[in-house]
C-alpha cells in the first residue's frame, strides 16, 4: 500500500493526511463513522430512499459501530504499548494494515449514503413540502425559508437585480470620477507652471481633499437621505410638478448617485495610495529627461500606480454590493428593500434575512472570485474578501 502512495505527487495537507498517513485510517475514519451514526439516528425525511430498506440501514449502522469499537481497541493498544505499538499491535501487520485501509473506504461510502439520504433528501423534502404548502410552515425553519424563497422569488429577484446594477454601474462610474479626482489630488506646484496653472492646481487639490474628507466622514445612509431629497427639491424648483419629478428622479437614480459619489471618494484614496506607492525615483528619472509633470505622470508613474491600486479598487465592488443595502432608506428597491418587504408580509425577520444574507454572500463571493481572476490577469495579488469601506488605506495621512 505504502509504495502505491509514496509514488504519488505532493498533495495538500488534508489529502496527504487521508491518503498517506496511516494514523488517519483508524482515528480519522472513526470521526467519519461517528458523523454517519449521528446522521443515521436523525429522523428520516419524507423523500428518504432508505426507508423501505430498514435492514440494510441497520447493517450499515452496526458496521459503523464496529469500526468505532475497532478504533477503540487500536487506541487501547497504543496506550498500552506506546513506542512498541508497531511490534505488538495486530493492526500494524502489513496484511491487516491493508484490510483496515479498505475498511476505511467502506466507512466513507456508508457515511456518504447517510449524507445523501438524510441531508440531501431532507432538503429536497423540505422544498417539496414548502411548495405544496398553502401557508408558510411555522414550525420548520427550512420549510419556512423555502416557502418564502418560492413565493417571493420575484421580489427577491427584483431586489437582487437592482443591487447588482447599483454595485456594478456605481463602481464603474465612480472609478472614472475617482481617476479624475485622484489626478486633482496629487497635483503639485511645479517650477515650470505659470501663475494660472498654480492657481488651478491648488484649487483642484483642495477640492479633492475637501471632497474626500466630507464624503468619507459621513455615513452613506445620511448621504442618500441628503442627495435624494435635495435633488428632488432642486428639480421642483425648476417648476416641475411632483409627479413629473417622480417620473425622472426615482429612488434608483438617487441611490445610484449616492453610491457613485461615495465610492468616488474611497476609490480616489486608493488610487492616490497606489500612485504614491510608486518609487519617487520614477518621477525624477522621467523629469530629468525633460518630460513635463503631466507626461511623466501619464506615461511612467500612473501605469505603475494603477497596478498597486487594482486590489483596492476591485474590493470597492464587493464593498458596494454590501453597502448599497443602506440605500433602502430612500426607497431604492434593492435586495435589502426586498428583504424588508418580505419581512412585512410574514411578520418574520429571521427567515427572509437568512435568505438575503445567503444571496449577498453568493454575490460577494462571485464578485471577489471574478475580481481575483481580473487581478491575476494584471499580475497583482488580490485582496482577501471581507474588508469594508472603513479599510485602512495605503499611504493615508
Amino acid at each position, binding site marked *: 500500500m505504502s509504495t502505491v502512495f509514496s509514488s504519488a505527487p505532493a498533495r495538500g495537507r488534508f489529502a496527504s493526511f487521508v491518503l498517506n498517513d496511516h494514523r488517519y485510517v483508524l482515528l480519522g475514519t472513526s470521526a467519519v463513522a461517528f458523523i454517519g451514526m449521528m446522521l443515521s439516528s436523525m429522523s428520516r425525511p419524507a423523500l428518504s430512499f432508505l426507508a423501505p430498506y430498514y435492514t440494510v440501514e441497520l447493517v450499515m449502522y452496526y458496521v459503523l459501530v464496529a469500526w468505532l469499537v475497532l478504533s477503540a481497541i487500536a487506541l487501547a493498544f497504543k496506550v498500552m504499548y506506546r513506542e512498541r505499538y508497531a511490534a505488538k499491535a495486530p493492526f500494524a501487520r502489513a496484511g491487516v494494515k491493508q484490510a483496515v485501509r479498505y475498511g476505511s473506504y467502506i466507512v466513507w461510502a456508508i457515511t456518504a449514503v447517510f449524507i445523501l439520504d438524510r441531508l440531501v433528501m431532507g432538503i429536497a423534502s423540505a422544498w417539496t413540502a414548502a411548495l405544496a404548502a398553502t401557508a408558510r410552515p411555522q414550525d420548520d425553519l427550512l420549510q419556512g425559508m423555502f416557502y418564502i424563497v418560492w413565493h417571493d422569488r420575484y421580489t427577491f429577484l427584483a431586489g437582487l437585480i437592482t443591487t447588482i446594477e447599483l454595485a456594478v454601474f456605481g463602481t464603474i462610474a465612480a472609478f472614472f470620477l475617482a481617476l479624475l479626482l485622484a489626478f486633482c489630488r496629487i497635483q503639485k506646484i*511645479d*517650477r*515650470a507652471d505659470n501663475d494660472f496653472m498654480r492657481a488651478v492646481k491648488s484649487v483642484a487639490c483642495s477640492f479633492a481633499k475637501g471632497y474626500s474628507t466630507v464624503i468619507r466622514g459621513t455615513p452613506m445612509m445620511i448621504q442618500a437621505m441628503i442627495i435624494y431629497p435635495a435633488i428632488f427639491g432642486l428639480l421642483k424648483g425648476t417648476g416641475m410638478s411632483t409627479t413629473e419629478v417622480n417620473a425622472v428622479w426615482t429612488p434608483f437614480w438617487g441611490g445610484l448617485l449616492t453610491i457613485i459619489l461615495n465610492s468616488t471618494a474611497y476609490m480616489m484614496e486608493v488610487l492616490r495610495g497606489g500612485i504614491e506607492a510608486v*518609487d519617487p*525615483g*520614477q518621477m*525624477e*528619472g*522621467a*523629469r*530629468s*529627461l*525633460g*518630460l*513635463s509633470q503631466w*507626461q511623466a505622470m501619464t*506615461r*511612467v508613474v500612473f*501605469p*505603475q500606480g494603477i497596478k498597486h491600486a487594482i486590489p483596492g479598487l476591485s474590493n470597492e465592488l464587493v464593498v458596494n454590493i454590501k453597502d448599497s443595502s443602506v440605500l433602502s432608506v430612500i426607497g431604492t428597491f434593492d435586495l435589502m428593500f426586498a428583504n424588508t418587504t418580505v419581512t412585512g408580509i410574514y411578520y418574520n425577520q429571521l427567515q427572509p434575512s437568512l435568505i438575503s444574507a445567503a444571496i449577498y454572500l453568493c454575490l460577494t463571493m462571485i464578485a471577489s472570485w471574478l475580481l481575483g481572476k481580473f487581478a491575476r490577469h494584471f499580475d497583482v495579488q488580490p485582496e482577501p474578501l471581507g474588508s469594508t469601506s472603513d479599510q485602512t488605506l495605503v499611504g493615508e495621512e
Partner: protein
Amino acid sequence: MAELIDNAADTQAASVAEQEANSKEPMIRIEGLHKSFGDHEVLRGIDLSVMPGQVVTIIGSSGSGKSTLLRCLNLLETPDAGHVWFHGKDLVAERVGVNQLREKIGMVFQSFNLFNNMNVLDNCTLAPVTLKKMGKDEAERVAMEHLEEVGLTEFAKADVRRLSGGQKQRVAIARALCMRPDLMLFDEPTSALDPEIVGEVLEVMHQLARDGMTMVVVTHEMTFAREVSDEVVFMDKGIIAEQGSPEQLFSNPQHPRTREFLARYLKDE
C-alpha cells in the same frame, strides 16, 4: 564592452565642445549657491565652473551636499539663493523652461530610476519620441546606437526589472545619451552596485569622457576620479573645501579635511 564604436555624431559633438572650449566660456557656472532643507543648511555658498568637455568629479563624505549640488544643476532641487548659468542663461533668477533645460542635461541616478513599466528600448525612446517629435523608427535607431555603446543591444527587448544592477545603470546612461545632452550629471552611479560590476559602468563613463562629453560626477570611486577627471572638487559641510587637478588634490592635499578624507579612502583601496 570590448568594442566601442566611434560614431560620427559623437565626433561631431566632441568638435562642438572643442570649439566652445576654445572660446573659454564655461558651460555651467555656479555662483554663491545656497540650499536648505528646513533648518538644515546643505549648501553654503558654492562657486564652480565647468568648461565644455571637462570632467569634474565631486568627492566628499556623506551629507557634505554633493548630491544636492548636482541636483541643483538640473533644478531637481530649487536653490534658495545664488546663480547657476547654463550656456550663459541664469536658471535660478529667470523662470526658465525647466523641461527644455533638462533635455540638454542628462542625469544618471544612484538607483537607476529606469521605468519599470517599459522594456529597455522603450526606456530609451520615450523621451526622444515625446519631446523631440522624433519618429519611432528614428528614435529606436538612435537608441540602438547608444545601447551598442554600452554593450547591451541584445537586451533591447528585455524587461528592465530583470537586468543586473550594472546593466541597469548602463541602460540609464544610454537613455540619457539618447537625448543628445550637452552635459551629463552622474549622482553616485556605482554606489548601489556590487563591487565586481562597478567596473562595467566605470568603463562606459570612461569612454564617454574620452569622447569629449562634459560630465559632473559625484562619486566615491577615487581611482576613477584620479584617472578620468580634469578637476576634482572636495566638498565638506556644504562648501567646497578644496579643488584642483587630480594630481594636485590626491598627491598634495592642502586642506586638513581633505587629507583626513583621502587617508581614510586610500587606505581602504
